């Protein structure tokens, strides 16, 4: 760069230009594929979150019913 004059464009020779373009195309395809995989993971995560929420509600229902049974069985004097 010391030899480069101000304002004078300096060029670098590229021998395998088409091969580089092919590699860049392949990288673009891989990025697209990874993006699709991330979208799929995001959808699976949303489904998992919904299932976990439903599971949590179900567990709350079970807990309530167990409390009711516990009251019925072990507190007969009060009823």
């Amino acid at each position, binding site marked *: 760069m010391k030899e480069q004059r101000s304002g004078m*464009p*300096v060029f670098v020779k590229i*021998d395998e230009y088409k091969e580089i373009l092919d590699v860049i195309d392949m990288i673009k395809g891989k990025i697209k594929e990874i993006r699709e995989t991330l979208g799929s993971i995001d959808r699976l995560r949303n489904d998992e979150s919904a299932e976990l929420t439903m599971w949590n509600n179900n567990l709350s229902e079970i807990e309530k019913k167990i409390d009711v049974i516990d009251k019925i069985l072990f507190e007969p004097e009060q009823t």
Partner: protein
Amino acid sequence: MPLRNANKSFNKNDIVYQIGCVLVGFLKLLKRNKKENLEDLDLPPEPPPLEGFEEDFSKLPEEDFSKLPDLPTFPEGEISGSDIPMPQFDFPERMEIIQDSAKESIAPEFTNLSGIGEMPMAPAEPVDFSTELIPELPQSTPIELKNVPEEAQLKEIPSGKTLYVRVDEFKTTLGSINIIRSDLRKAEETLMKLEGIKTAKDKSFDEVRSALDDLQKRLIFVDKTLFKGE
């Protein structure tokens, strides 16, 4: 200068110089007069007779060359690409290139050159453009890759031609490649973290599953115990 006492052939064939009052003649005594000597030469001896060729050629059998087979004709169908028209190349005419280069090579007009007009101008020598000023075509032309569609780039670049990229764009590209490399390293670390989270989640699911199985067993025991009496 002919000499009076010399014969005609001497005056005709020899050169005579006069130096002062002395006449000096360079006689061609050592040289042969070809016309005279060729006639006087003896004939060379006859060549020896050739063995086997002294026969009369009229005794040879006459061959009928009209019975020879015709030359084979090459079938046109087997010629590959015979029906393909030859491409029309759009080459620039040579004289146009030479004229353009001659226009470019004309020196600019100088101003304020006093005294030059008074000096005699040397006659302009005719320049042979066909040999001297043929422009040397560049071996490679820089192609701007910025803001050009990729397909258009591929169409414009002929095969086997050297390409160049600006140094500043090359450095920008190298910087981008380094950033991409660090991003890929980060993405790999994130993927490792996600794999750890997934492993922990699977472990939790297994624990929940075992807890639910235990709960179901205990519930069945309670159910059996409560409704056994009935």
